[in-house]
């Protein structure tokens, strides 16, 4: 039976090496503080403490900006910033030893709101911004010197919309907010590091083995070949296990201790390690009286917390997905990635595109209201069609937005009346540019072994890629092996993110079968950050969602009675896996829509546990949760790992909007719904009085 069902599968947290020590991390209680001294003299014998002075000689790192050090050196930049670490024979002893470390802090002023932080003359989180040398810095970065804006991405398509809006018959201008969220994968971050002379070996749950190898090589001044990353399957990741997380601390401690060291986070620490960007998105849209879209102006502020991580990329995708799959004569976007004194925010299923989809799709419904048009009709009139150009200038191919949207509308019986119903449509980019390689080794016994850096995190990549290899090789899948990725043995791959792996590895496998077992796939492209022109996505992930709600207007409590997502799959490779990814994305989208919010008080997270921070449970799943995987003969495979998440909150928001209940902030709590009900009633009373 499957090792997952019997519980025999071994995750990185289960890795156990002889002589291994267990480590815990000491974290700053202050959102911003000068570290005046660290005294570890009371740490008991048998424990090894790692202090700022131990790591001062190691290079700084960061996925897109080199703003991180192994431990905070002179300033702690958020409540939770690692300041020291201890390795001990047991986790318990390591935890107790943390209390023996005395840190002398001087609290400094801090900034927590991204719009405020983007202004000049506030607290500067970082003095300078050095562009990263890692493979994750794949586009030109535009840090705004002397400010907390570490990347500004812009689209300049057509004329300045601010001039054009005057000629539009209908204009909507609204600001939307989305809360920070936790990935809350069931398995926490877990890493084990071991030094073998001057060679570093790391077993870790990571979606980015080669980025991690390069970064660790730079930090410890090693050749890349002298760093080995082994990737056991992950108990969920959703973007949280990207780039350097615990591995540098584990490695530095292991070097100092002269023994292997394991670090596993507890649940509260997850909330201090990586979250989803809270965002403010202002959307201004203009249309002609007949519903033709004319101009789109979007401003995004993505709060990346105290370290940039891949936040610049998140802000860029938030920005370039903002205008949506529509024909705009004029579209300008400014997306700022902003430092604050909050825990770092990074990749999260959907990568910024939920935030801008939420804002734009609600604004489109408001525009439909202004115009007196059906929101479905308005969208269909303006959706991109085959061969048309997106606001980035790239030509769109294999275009199915209208098909997705119509399927979603059918599922909620849109034609029978639209009260309590909402729709949303989206486009979502796939990592562009990127590279993939795969090796198919033929064994003596008629089996094949796949050497591939794509990691398994529950998305079913191992199964999908094995099926693809078996198909191309013309053998039964039972003869295909796919061992855990090990950078000593597998060829380079950009990373396991952005729903790219099934598609790129399918192409690489085809190439491998043609070329003696070693296959390559390279995707060119990229955008000019100042104009947003170029190729944002080699092909686009396309989807739509529809929701139906029932609202108790006395309490603001509402129920999502029906939820449907229609996602363009092109071709489904592993049907059960594809269905699970769609259902899982929708359910995660439901959590984002209804209750997931990281609450911050004075820079400290107030709900860092799964009791106060709720994630969807059985009872939260709508009775009618359905979805489509749309396929077309001869089409390219389109990834499915996250497309169904971003449109869900917007579809639910628009369902509320159809009742005149206009919520602008995620999550849509009963309190905010009640407030919107009151606002609607006040407005209609006012109108009645006139």
């Amino acid at each position: 039976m499957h090792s997952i069902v019997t519980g025999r599968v071994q995750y990185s947290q289960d890795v156990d090496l002889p002589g291994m020590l267990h480590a815990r991390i000491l974290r700053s209680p202050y959102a911003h503080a000068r570290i005046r001294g660290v005294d570890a003299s009371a740490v008991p014998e048998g424990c090894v403490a790692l202090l700022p002075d131990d790591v001062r000689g190691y290079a700084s790192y960061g996925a897109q900006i080199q703003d991180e050090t192994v431990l905070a050196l002179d300033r702690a930049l958020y409540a939770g910033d690692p300041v020291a670490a201890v390795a001990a024979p047991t986790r318990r002893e390591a935890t107790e030893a943390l209390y023996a470390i005395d840190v002398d802090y001087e609290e400094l002023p801090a900034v927590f709101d991204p719009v405020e932080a983007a202004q000049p003359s506030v607290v500067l989180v970082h003095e300078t911004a050095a562009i990263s040398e890692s493979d994750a810095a794949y586009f030109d970065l535009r840090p705004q010197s002397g400010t907390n804006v570490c990347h500004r991405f812009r689209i300049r398509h057509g004329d300045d919309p601010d001039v054009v809006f005057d000629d539009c018959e209908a204009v909507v201008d609204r600001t939307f907010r989305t809360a920070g969220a936790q990935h809350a994968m069931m398995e926490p971050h877990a890493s084990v590091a071991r030094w073998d002379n001057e060679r570093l070996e790391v077993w870790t749950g990571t979606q980015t083995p080669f980025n991690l190898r390069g970064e660790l090589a730079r930090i410890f001044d090693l050749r890349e070949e002298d760093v080995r990353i082994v990737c056991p399957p992950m108990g969920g990741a959703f973007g949280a296990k990207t780039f350097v997380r615990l591995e540098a601390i584990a490695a530095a401690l292991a070097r100092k201790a002269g023994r292997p060291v394991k670090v596993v986070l507890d649940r509260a620490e997850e909330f201090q390690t990586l979250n989803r960007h809270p965002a403010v998105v202002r959307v201004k849209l203009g249309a002609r009286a007949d519903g033709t879209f004319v101009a789109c102006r979007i401003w995004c502020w993505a709060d990346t917390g105290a370290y940039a991580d891949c936040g610049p990329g998140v802000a860029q995708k938030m920005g370039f997905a903002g205008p949506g799959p529509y024909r705009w004569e004029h579209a300008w976007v400014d997306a700022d990635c902003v430092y604050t004194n909050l825990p770092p925010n990074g990749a999260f299923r959907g990568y910024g595109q939920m935030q801008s989809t939420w804002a734009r799709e609600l604004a489109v419904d408001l525009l439909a209201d202004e115009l007196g048009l059906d929101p479905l009709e308005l969208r269909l009139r303006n959706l991109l069609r085959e061969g048309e150009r997106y606001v980035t200038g790239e030509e769109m191919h294999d275009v199915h937005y209208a098909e997705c949207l119509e399927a979603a509308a059918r599922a909620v019986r849109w034609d029978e009346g639209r009260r309590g119903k909402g729709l949303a449509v989206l486009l979502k980019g796939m990592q562009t540019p990127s590279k993939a390689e795969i090796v198919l080794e033929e064994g003596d016994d008629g089996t094949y072994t796949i050497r591939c850096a794509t990691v398994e995190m529950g998305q079913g990549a191992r199964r999908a890629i094995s099926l693809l290899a078996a198909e191309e090789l013309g053998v039964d899948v039972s003869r295909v092996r796919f061992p855990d990725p090990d950078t000593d043995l597998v060829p380079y791959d950009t990373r396991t993110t952005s729903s790219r792996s099934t598609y790129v590895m399918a192409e690489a496998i085809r190439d491998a079968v043609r070329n003696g077992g070693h296959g390559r796939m390279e995707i060119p492209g990229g955008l000019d950050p100042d104009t947003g022109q170029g190729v944002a996505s080699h092909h686009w992930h396309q989807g739509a969602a529809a929701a139906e709600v029932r609202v108790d207007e006395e309490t603001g409590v509402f129920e999502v009675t029906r939820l449907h997502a229609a996602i363009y799959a092109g071709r489904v490779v592993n049907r059960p896996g594809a269905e699970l990814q769609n259902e899982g994305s929708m359910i995660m989208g439901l959590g984002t829509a209804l209750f997931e919010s990281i609450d911050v008080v004075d820079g400290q997270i107030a709900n860092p546990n799964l009791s106060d921070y709720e994630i969807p449970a059985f009872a939260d799943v709508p009775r009618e949760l359905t979805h489509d995987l749309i396929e077309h003969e001869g089409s390219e495979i389109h990834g499915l790992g996250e497309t169904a998440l971003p449109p869900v909150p917007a579809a639910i928001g628009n369902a509320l909007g159809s009742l005149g209940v206009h919520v602008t902030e995620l999550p849509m709590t009963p309190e905010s719904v009640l407030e919107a009900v009151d606002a609607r009633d006040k407005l209609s009373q006012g109108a009645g009085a006139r």
Partner: protein
Amino acid sequence: MRLRVNGADIEVEATNDEMLLAVLRRAGFSSVRETCGIGVCGACSVLVDGETVSGCLTLARAAVGREIGTAEGLAADDPVARAFADAHAFQCGFCTPAMVLTAKRLLEETPSPDEDEIRVAMSGNLCRCGSYVKIVEAVRAAAR
């Protein structure tokens, strides 16, 4: 202390204030997993005298002299585990062993549960991958 796990007596080194979760993991029962540590998520659910309990909230000492069951003790042809495998009722699989144990307990008490009964009985087990639809299908299939 001496614990009886999956029908076998084992000797473990543990203090009186240690939880069953930590002790079982140290003894090599890695299907018992920590996610929340506060009894919310169900990933550390084990059977104690046939009842599901949270390993993170149960003192190991309190389980002495009782029958502890983990997924490691499932028979090779366990019908509930088989139903989970056939229904593809998992993604990352971290929550799966505890889901299977919880479903087994439900089906002992209620051999033919309807969807509401399944949802209520399983409500203490979280799956962040969101495999809930197929987990309900698996439990229904196991009931048949």
